[in-house]
Structure formats: C-alpha cells, structure tokens
C-alpha cells in the first residue's frame, strides 16, 4: 500500500546523493526541454538519456514497470488516437469515412507520446531517488513557506494510513452484511456513504490529535526557526546542475536563436 504513494526506494547512487534542490531544478529543466524539442528523433535521444539515468540509479525493473505501466497505456492511446483527430498534412495514408489518416499526423502522435514518456520518466526518477522528507526540505529551502512545507509533508505522511483506514472501514461494513457490488449505480453509490462518513470522521479525529501534538511541541511559537539538517551544495551538485543547464540551453538557443529544426 505504501508503494502506491511513496515511490522512494532507498539506495546509494549518485542520483540518490544529489542535493534535492538540484534534482528538482534538473527535473524542471528537462521537462521544459521535452517541450522545446519538437522532432521525434531529438525526443527519442532525450528519452534514451533519461533511461540511462534510470539505469544508473539502479531502478528495479519490477517497481519501474509497476509505477509506469499506466503511462505506457496512456502513450499507446495517444499514438492510436492522435491521427484520428488530427488530419492536417499530406500524404494521406487512409480514409475511413470522415476520418483521414495522414503521415505527419501519425508522426505527431509518436512525438507526443515520446514527450509524455520523457516527462513521466524524469519525474519518476525524482520521486524514487528522493525521500519525501528531502523533497519538502528542498522546497522549503527554495523559498516555500515552512507551514506549507509541513502541510505537504504531513499529507504525504498520513496518506498511506488514511488508505489503510479506508480499507478497514470497507471491511467493517462488509462484516455487517453490506455488499458493495450489488444493486444499480445509484444504490451502489449510496452504499459508499457508509465508507465516506467514517473516513471523514476518522480523518478529523486524526487531525484534531495531530494539532494538539503540534501545539504541545510549541509549533508556531514566535522564534527564528533553526534546522537540524542543513542542505549543502557540493562540487558534484554544481557539476550536475551545469550539465543539465547546458543540456537545456544548447537546444533552446539552437531552436529559438538559430532556428534549427530540432
């Protein structure tokens, strides 16, 4: 159940050790790059580079597959549907009634799918090489207000236990003879009230005791916050940031300054 929300897997590779701020910036830059690039070839090269990173960070095959199989399905859908709705360009490959399948549209379908693949993989790398605590810490150091950071951290932390509560509630109601898979749509959705109400009540009770716990540790007291763990950029962090920046800037300049079709 935890694997569902927390993709992080502990390991010791250079990607795991990288400063989380560098990782967040790099992922943003690479995501932008995926939009700058507009040909299938360049996107495939980017995808290959990202796969190399995946390989270097020793992603387990089964977990990666588990996390990304939905993306693959989505990509397949794009490849199939794109040419059906986009009929611009020639040559026309086939005509089925009002639908015209053209060669450039088919390539555009593949290009968009590759872009989605790039985006999903980069963000996946970030999520599974960075613990949630580090992510939040980085966001706070990058200027996010501390309370918002804490809110995000708490939400992430309690999500798995909230899911466990939901499953337990479903079990509790089934044990009282409630059958979720019987009856029509309306009848069925009414049955979920029996899950929703206890779930909300439990969440509120948790929130209530949590706020007490926070207050009793002087959260919100007026003082300058200090941090136990400091983030410090090392040489390797700067190097990584430089490489990724170059990776972004070179194609960007090539495209918008020298009008290279890339």
């Amino acid at each position: 159940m935890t694997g569902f929300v927390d993709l992080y897997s502990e390991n010791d590779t250079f990607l795991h050790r990288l400063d989380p701020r560098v990782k967040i910036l790099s992922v943003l830059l690479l995501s932008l790059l995926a939009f700058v690039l507009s040909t299938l070839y360049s996107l495939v090269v980017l995808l290959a580079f990202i796969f190399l990173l995946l390989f270097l960070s020793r992603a387990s095959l089964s977990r990666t597959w588990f996390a990304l199989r939905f993306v693959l399905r989505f990509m397949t859908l794009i490849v199939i549907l794109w040419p059906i709705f986009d009929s611009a360009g020639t040559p026309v490959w086939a005509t089925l009634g009002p639908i015209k399948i053209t060669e450039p549209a088919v390539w555009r379908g593949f290009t968009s799918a590759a872009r989605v693949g790039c985006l999903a993989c980069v963000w996946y790398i970030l999520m599974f090489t960075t613990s949630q605590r580090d992510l939040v810490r980085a966001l706070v150091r990058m200027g996010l207000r501390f309370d918002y950071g804490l809110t995000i951290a708490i939400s992430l932390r309690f999500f798995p236990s909230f899911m466990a509560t939901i499953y337990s509630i479903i079990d509790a109601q089934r044990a009282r003879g409630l059958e979720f898979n019987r009856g029509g749509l309306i009848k069925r959705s009414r049955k979920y009230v029996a899950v929703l109400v206890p779930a909300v009540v439990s969440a509120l009770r948790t929130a209530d005791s949590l706020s007490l716990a926070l207050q009793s540790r002087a959260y919100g007291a007026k003082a300058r916050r200090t941090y136990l763990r400091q983030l410090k950029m090392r040489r390797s962090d700067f190097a990584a940031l430089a490489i990724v920046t170059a990776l972004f800037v070179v194609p960007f300049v090539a495209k918008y300054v020298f009008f290279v079709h890339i």
Partner: protein
Amino acid sequence: MIPKPSIDDERLAAFRDVDFTYEDGTEALRGITLDIWKGEHIALVGGNGSGKTTLAKHLNGLLTPTGGNVIVGEFDTCKEPVARLARTVGYVFQNPDHQLFCPTVTDEVQFGPRNFGLSDSEIAEKTDRALEIMTLDHLKAEPPMSLSLGDRRRVSIASVIATDPEMIVLDEPFTGLDAKEADELMRVVNGINREGKTIILITHDMRVVAEHSERVIVLAEGRLMLDCRTRKVFSESSLLRDSGLTPPPVSQLAHRLGEYGVSPETLTVDELAEEIARLMEGAK
C-alpha cells in the same frame, strides 16, 4: 491439545492447514489447524503482529486462505460471499469509528439486520434487544459519532448483536476503556456466551483471559503455539514467554508458591485466596 467436545457439540468453524500470505509477501498465518465449537468462550492471544486479526478475518471471509481450507458452518469461506458468512459470524472491529456512520444509534444498530433483509418487525425486535443488552436505551436517538469512546464501542457491539450471529469476534475491545468499563463489557459478553453464542476474544489483557475464557489459542509469528484449556496455558509459562506473553500476576504468584502446595493452575484472586486459606488451615 485441542479440547475434546462433548457428543452434542456442534462444530462452527474448522481451519485445516491454513496459510495466509498478504499481497506484499508477509506470511501472516502458517499451517493453522483448529476447530471452534458452538458455545465456546475462546481467547485469541499473541504478541503484536502475531496474526490474531488475520486469523479472525478468516472467520467471516474478509480474508480467504492462500493455502488450506476454512469451513464456517457448512460453508467453505472461499466460495461464500462475506455477507452470507456475516450472518453466522459477527465481527466487532478494533476501532468503532471505522463503522459508525448513521444519524442515530438506533439506525446504526438496525444497519446490519437491514442488510440481511429481515422483516421490519424482526428488525425492531432484534434492535430493541441489542440496545437493551448493551444498556443503550437512553442514547437511542443520539448521533453515535458524538458519544464517548466507551459508548461508541457499546454501539458497535450492539450493532453486531442485533444481527444475532452464532459467533461473535471481538478484536481488542478494551482499547481505551477503563477497568470498570472493561469488566462491565465482559459481564455482557459472558451473558451472551451463556445464551449459547460462541465468543472469540482477541486481547492482550491476560487477567481478563484468566478470569473469563475457557480456552486459549496462542499465536506467535503466524503459527499456532498453544491451543488448550485456560488453566493449562498459564502453567506453561516458558512457552507463553516465547510468544511474548506474561501470565497474569495471580498465576505467577501461584507458580512461585507451588512448592508450598498451591496449584499452578490457579487463575483468579478468589481461587488463590481459597488455596492459601486451605494451606493455612492445614498448617494450624
């Protein structure tokens, strides 16, 4: 080691070589074989994570074995829907807040009988009885969510009693109750047991086990460590300790006094007092 039933006993549940592995690979039950007879008062004990809840959830089909068989009544739990098994086995969950959702206590208690499609008069009769047994009459019209934890737990138990099951599983029902509330709860549970209902009590409280249960099932790491009469269990203190359990003070004391002639099978304060009085009489 399994207690012998008398001739007219009826078997309610049978576990045969049951294994259960959760989806993430946790082996929660290994090779469990046991029988549960009508009218028994059983304590299911073991350390944290020993598999008590997992075993109990097999009784109403919320979980089905990944190896072996579980028979409840005449049904194989793999083949029957939970809603059918729930008529035989009522289950009181550890946290009452995971089930309460109705606007009033009465609605809450009626929820189960309604799901089982009983007639209105039957529903009314069973609900009234359940409310009476749990002494909830004065709270009938209250919203259950706003009651105290002790009362919320009583509502959750009433809502199970109202379905009139043959067997009632109580998963750690004393969490958050004070000693008086716990004793009161046990008094009600024993009353239900005397009516011929089977009780399965999951608890860490060995004093309650010693005083009320007649049979104890001890689990450790998903295995059945002990399954016998309560008197026997607490005299096997080394096995108990291996399972992460401590006998109640009375049996510990009885054990220590063994060399003076106190029976190591003494379970309650009353029994111990009697034993000691007997010995002192003899010494005079």
